[in-house]
């Protein structure tokens, strides 16, 4: 067993060097499966994972094939979930993947940066929604509304748009983006309060329906607030949204010996910014979970009557969860607007809310690594796997009509995945122990 896993890893390392591409990366995924699921000594497993990290990095760098990114995500999952791997190895390999492998792959194929940033933004939002749904047990189907409020908060003032209704010198300089991340946290928290005040008085299905409705209200407001006064520029959206100047970042990287060109500099910058945000969001998530607030949310989720009898007031406690989740989403909205330089109501549909919720459920409710994995899995599925598969079908089987193009069945695939999850693994890919216990209790 040990020999097999190591041999596969080494073989893939060779393939990644001499024959990089989709096929060798597929082989790499098989090798990863072997390293993760075979019965191995901890040393052999650790060595295999390290070799595979190197090999996937090499393969990505030489071919830019995105299957390699799936491999890296897989290694990250293995590092967080497999037992008996020394913690310093986990940290070292994890950091190497995030800080070295992915940027290297991004230079080979800028789409990987795009994918990485997208995953990061959604992961941070999934973590925010995790506070609301996973910890406090409040089913929120309008979460994209907060994302929208955050995005528009910066889009309106970081573009000439604000001149339509205000005196002043717009667009504001790009540095203001950082300030607006703070402002967006406040505006989305207030939006959370306004939506939450009527909504969190309701329970279960009623709460879900009301948040769904109020979430749509925000999107429709964005769509229609182009008259009588033009706040949002309606369905055309707002562009160009300012980005912060990153001369210091370019100087920094070239001082480190990595000169950046015009196509990758902002990509790399936003990639690191998003990583930083995820780090912050994870930290805050952990802190809250281990505080009296986290315990109060769990208590309310488990038994409202008992929680109230312990002196926990329902409405304020639920509102705090709602506002916290909203604030995460708002800060990511600002980054989203700046990174794309374009914001329109289309990005904040019900499907976006459902996708973020699906990420949380897929990963495992209440689970922090689960939320990140869910975000990675669904983003890669939507943006990469389905599109690549469509491309493949179109070129190799041109007689198949375009109506059955796999990329058009994103929702169907998402639905099937969720149904299968609910049947075979209802606690999610990386279950959180408390939710698993609750699930067993109900069974």
């Amino acid at each position, binding site marked *: 067993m040990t020999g097999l896993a190591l041999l596969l890893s080494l073989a893939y390392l060779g393939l990644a060097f001499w024959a990089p591409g989709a096929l060798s990366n597929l082989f790499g995924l098989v090798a990863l499966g072997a390293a993760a699921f075979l019965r191995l000594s901890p040393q052999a497993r650790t060595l295999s994972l390290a070799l595979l990290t190197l090999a996937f990095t090499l393969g990505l760098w030489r071919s830019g094939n995105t299957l390699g990114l799936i491999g890296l995500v897989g290694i990250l999952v293995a590092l967080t979930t497999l037992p008996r791997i020394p913690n310093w190895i986990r940290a070292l390999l994890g950091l190497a993947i995030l800080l070295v492998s992915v940027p290297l792959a991004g230079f080979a194929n800028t789409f990987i940066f795009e994918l990485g940033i997208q995953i990061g933004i959604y992961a941070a939002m999934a973590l925010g929604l995790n506070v609301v749904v996973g910890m406090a047990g409040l089913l929120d189907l309008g979460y994209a509304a907060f994302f929208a409020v955050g995005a528009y908060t910066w889009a309106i003032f970081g573009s000439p748009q604000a001149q339509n209704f205000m005196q002043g010198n717009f667009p504001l300089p790009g540095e203001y983006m950082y300030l607006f991340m703070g402002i967006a946290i406040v505006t989305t928290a207030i939006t959370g309060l306004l939506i939450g005040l009527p909504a969190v008085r309701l329970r279960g299905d009623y709460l879900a329906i009301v948040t769904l409705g109020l979430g749509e209200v925000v999107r429709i407001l964005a769509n229609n607030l182009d008259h009588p006064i033009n706040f949002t520029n309606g369905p055309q959206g707002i562009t160009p949204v300012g980005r912060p100047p990153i001369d210091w970042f370019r100087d920094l990287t070239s001082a480190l010996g990595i000169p950046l060109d015009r196509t990758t500099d902002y990509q790399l910058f936003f990639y690191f910014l998003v990583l930083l945000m995820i780090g912050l969001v994870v930290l805050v998530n952990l802190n*809250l979970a281990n505080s009296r607030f986290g*315990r109060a949310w769990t208590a309310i989720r488990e038994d409202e009557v008992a929680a*109230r009898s312990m002196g926990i007031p329902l409405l304020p406690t639920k509102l705090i969860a709602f506002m916290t989740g909203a604030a995460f989403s708002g800060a990511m909205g600002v980054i989203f607007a700046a990174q794309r330089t374009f914001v329109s109501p289309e990005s904040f549909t019900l499907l976006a809310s459902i996708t973020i919720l699906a990420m949380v459920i897929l990963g495992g409710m209440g689970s922090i690594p689960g939320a990140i994995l869910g975000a990675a899995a669904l983003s890669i599925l939507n943006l990469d796997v389905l599109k690549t598969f469509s491309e493949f079908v179109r070129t190799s089987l041109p007689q198949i009509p375009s109506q059955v193009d796999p990329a058009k069945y994103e929702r169907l695939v998402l639905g099937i995945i969720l149904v299968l999850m609910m049947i075979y693994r209802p606690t999610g890919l990386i279950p959180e122990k408390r939710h698993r216990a609750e699930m067993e209790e109900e069974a």
Partner: protein
Amino acid sequence: MKALEVQNATKRFGGLVAVSDVSLEVNQGEIFSVIGPNGAGKTTLFNLLTGIYAPDQGRILLFGKDITGFTPDRVAKEGVGRTFQNIRLFGAMTALENLLVGMHIHIRVPYFHALFRTPLARREERRAKEEAEKLLDYVGLLHRKDELARNLPYGEQRRLEIARALALKPRLLLLDEPAAGMNPRETEELQAFIGRLRDELGITIVLIEHDMRLVMRISDRIAVLEYGAKIAEGTPEEVRKNPRVIEAYLGKGAAGGAA
């Protein structure tokens, strides 16, 4: 000042009068039992006291303060701890976490301190944990602190639920059938334990109980409910001899035979 005064409390559910014009007074430091046949309105009375229902008529005073119509969390903040007839622990939380939830109102960590886990937050968390462990030790469950509440044996769950109510630092403790499902030895332990709570912690205790042996031995005074109305009140001796009570429990005609 009385620990608890219930003045003419009435609660109706549609046509059913669950609690009908009940008045009680509980002295400080007293162990007071509420008994009555099934469906007599005992639990509804508890739910009125803890704010789960608001009475349709009447007032409830806690240490002289009118708490009529308070929500359950505000009643808890006034210093009323309770347990439930069918144990309502947070099953997927550990024993220690259950107590920490009970201490919620005494852990003074503002939101932003919790968010960034500031020194103040750490200090308060540590203090709370120590206090919770001390309390677990007091009820003899310290060795179970990291176990999920739902995995504890029944008797220990009962004790943990009382400990969780104690974490609130209550002035008044309401126990809803604490001996339900216990064998005679466990009941005896419970009796000693409740006595200790009153003697050592100075808490006033009101309990609902079906186990008459326990009630008669532990209570300073007893109130008897039937069909939502109070039919008798007094010391165990007085209640035992009250013909109305005997009738309620054993049926008409039994009073003559028993006396």
